[in-house]
């Protein structure tokens, strides 16, 4: 369970985030939607303790994220390609992250074998550094690395952008399966309304840092969102 209380973030006098209360129960697939500058990435960054909130605090499974680092062992995330280490090959990168998450080589290999379809023969065993991969393939590496070590919480910023259609469909299926048994909480943000409505049971719309909609996904959600954003 993730609980966010009175979170605000100000840069000088401009307020970029202001969320009074937000509770994400364990096992929920949670979608964050909003235009550029709505505060989606800022929220994720605060949740990952990469920036400090001006006020308030977030607890991730009873751990206050900026007081203790215990959340790191059960939280996997991919925000953008700066999360990748450009001079490593994909295998080396997975080994590095897997090592930090307490997996051995065999664990990592058996984990990666599940993603062979997604990798499509373009990522493993290619003798290519991550910095030389295409944007889409970099994203695949980052997302898979975020899932290493069976995290309880998975945070993905814009996971669908730059992915090819086949991988988009596979990723959606994967994310749905993750939350099937209500063990893993998945948080994604996206600009693509149809993808989030498909994946997420709950969608929160941010506008200039404020929560303007909090919807249980249903048949009508996509329409509702489209009419909201069609200005």
């Amino acid at each position, binding site marked *: 369970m993730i609980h966010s209380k009175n979170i605000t973030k100000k840069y000088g006098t401009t307020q970029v985030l202001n969320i009074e209360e937000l509770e994400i129960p364990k096992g929920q697939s949670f979608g964050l939607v909003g235009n550029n500058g709505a505060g989606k990435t800022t929220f994720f960054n605060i949740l*990952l303790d990469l920036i400090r909130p001006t006020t308030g605090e977030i607890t991730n499974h009873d751990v206050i994220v900026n007081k203790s680092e215990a959340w*790191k062992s059960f939280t996997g995330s991919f925000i953008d390609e*700066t999360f990748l280490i450009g*001079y490593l090959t994909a295998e080396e990168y997975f080994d590095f992250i897997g090592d930090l998450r307490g997996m051995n080589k065999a664990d990592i290999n058996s984990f990666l074998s599940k993603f062979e379809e997604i990798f499509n023969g373009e990522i493993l065993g290619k003798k*290519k550094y991550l910095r030389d991969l295409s944007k889409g393939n970099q994203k695949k590496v980052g997302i898979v690395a975020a899932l290493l070590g069976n995290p309880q919480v998975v945070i993905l910023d814009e996971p669908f952008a730059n992915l090819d259609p086949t991988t988009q469909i596979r990723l959606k299926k994967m994310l749905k399966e993750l939350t099937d048994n209500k063990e893993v909480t998945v948080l994604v943000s996206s600009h693509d309304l149809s993808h989030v409505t498909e994946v997420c049971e709950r969608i929160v719309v941010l506008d200039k840092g404020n929560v303007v909609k909090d919807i249980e996904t249903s048949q009508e959600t996509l329409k509702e969102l489209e009419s909201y954003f069609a200005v």
Partner: protein
Amino acid sequence: MFRRFLKLEWKQYFRSSYWQKGIALKIIMGFFALYMMASFLVLGVGSFFLIRKAMPGSDPLQVVNSFLIFAIIGDLIFRYLMQKMPVMNVKPLLVLPIKKNKLVHYVLGKSMFSAFNIFSLFFYIPFTVVLIGQDYSVYGALGWLFTMIFVTQCANFLNFIINKNNVAFWTLTVLLLGTIALQYFNIYDITIHSQSVFDGIFANPIYVSIPFVLLVILYVINQKILKQQLYLDAAVKVKVKEANTADLSWANRFGEMAPFIKNEIRLIWRNKRTKTVFLMSFAFVLYGLIFFTNPIYEEKMPGFLIFASLFVTGGFVLNYGQFIPAWESSYYKMLMTQNLSYRKYLESKWYLMVVITAVLFILATPYLYFGLKFYLMIAAGAAFNIGFNTLVLLFAGSFNRKQIDLNASGFGNTQGTSAKQFIVIIPVMLIPIGLFYAFSLPFGFNAGIAAIAGFGILGLVTKNYFMNLIAKRYIKEKYAAIHAFDQKA
């Protein structure tokens, strides 16, 4: 159109990260550039007189002419290894309404002003001026100068035609080594021909038209080739290097530190700038030769000897250590979301610095030749680098707020440098020198050396205590570092 290209060039140059730095650094770099230019001028002006002095009775011009053939072949080999056609600049222009011919002229024209072509002028122009000053024929000297300019430009365009062709490269190398060998063993003297050709041009400056015609021909050939190659899958293609995946599983014995150590090794070996720093630290071992061979330091300025002995083993600690953790700035954010122990993370860097310093110390063993005294100084310096400087630089690293782009080139790259890099010199360099004087003046030389070594050992003994403090400091500075590393330099 031409003016627009010039404007682009102007902006590219002055907006490059090269100029985006503090005023103090600019002044230092400026002085350095002036110094280099002055040195080359002195060489160009002085060589005439040097040759006359070294080979009395010979004509310096003829001596230079006879060796020009080697210079030209050497230049071609050097270009083959280093020079690339500046073709990537036109990528954004390809889809704009500009004729391909113009783009080709732009690329080729730009290449004419590359540093490879300008560099040699620092020798040829002053040499020509001296020739004229020494009452050589003005026409002959100018003809000679223009020949050299045209030959340099021919090499420029010939290199693009060779275009990384291995056969051409080996032919040139064999040609160069072969002619040098033939010359050395007095079997065949090619310098005579080299001399007669360039002497001939000096005598009849009209022959300058030959290299000029050659240049025009090479230019036209290049123009034809490049025009056909101006596609994203041909000339305008980003070359991708194949990954070298050495097996580093031996590092697994380091337990929790293993992933960091493996990563650090790959960081150093797979990025140009870190690799340069690493390789340079081996060159630093030779630093002592400058100081230990000159008795004046031993008699009057022993402080300089301390300075030198610190440098002999300190090349890696100083140059690499001062940019920790900025080397990892591009993915620092990710590291901070991982379940890592800061202590182990920092300790892996500490081990790396210690091991490399120890290796450098072993490499410095031949200094025994200069006497035990110097060797002990180096040993004390190594102890100080290992025990004290590693900790100071790790601590100072928590103040690093400048992002480093690992993909940028290695030589003379000062990205990531700030006032901090100068302030850290004080403890790292001045404390050992201060210690030396404080103990050697009252108690003699050996006490001074022992004090430095003792300080280093003290650092080694108290390492755990200070490492914990440093780790705390990194945690505290985490947000500021993440924010700063996000800003592109």
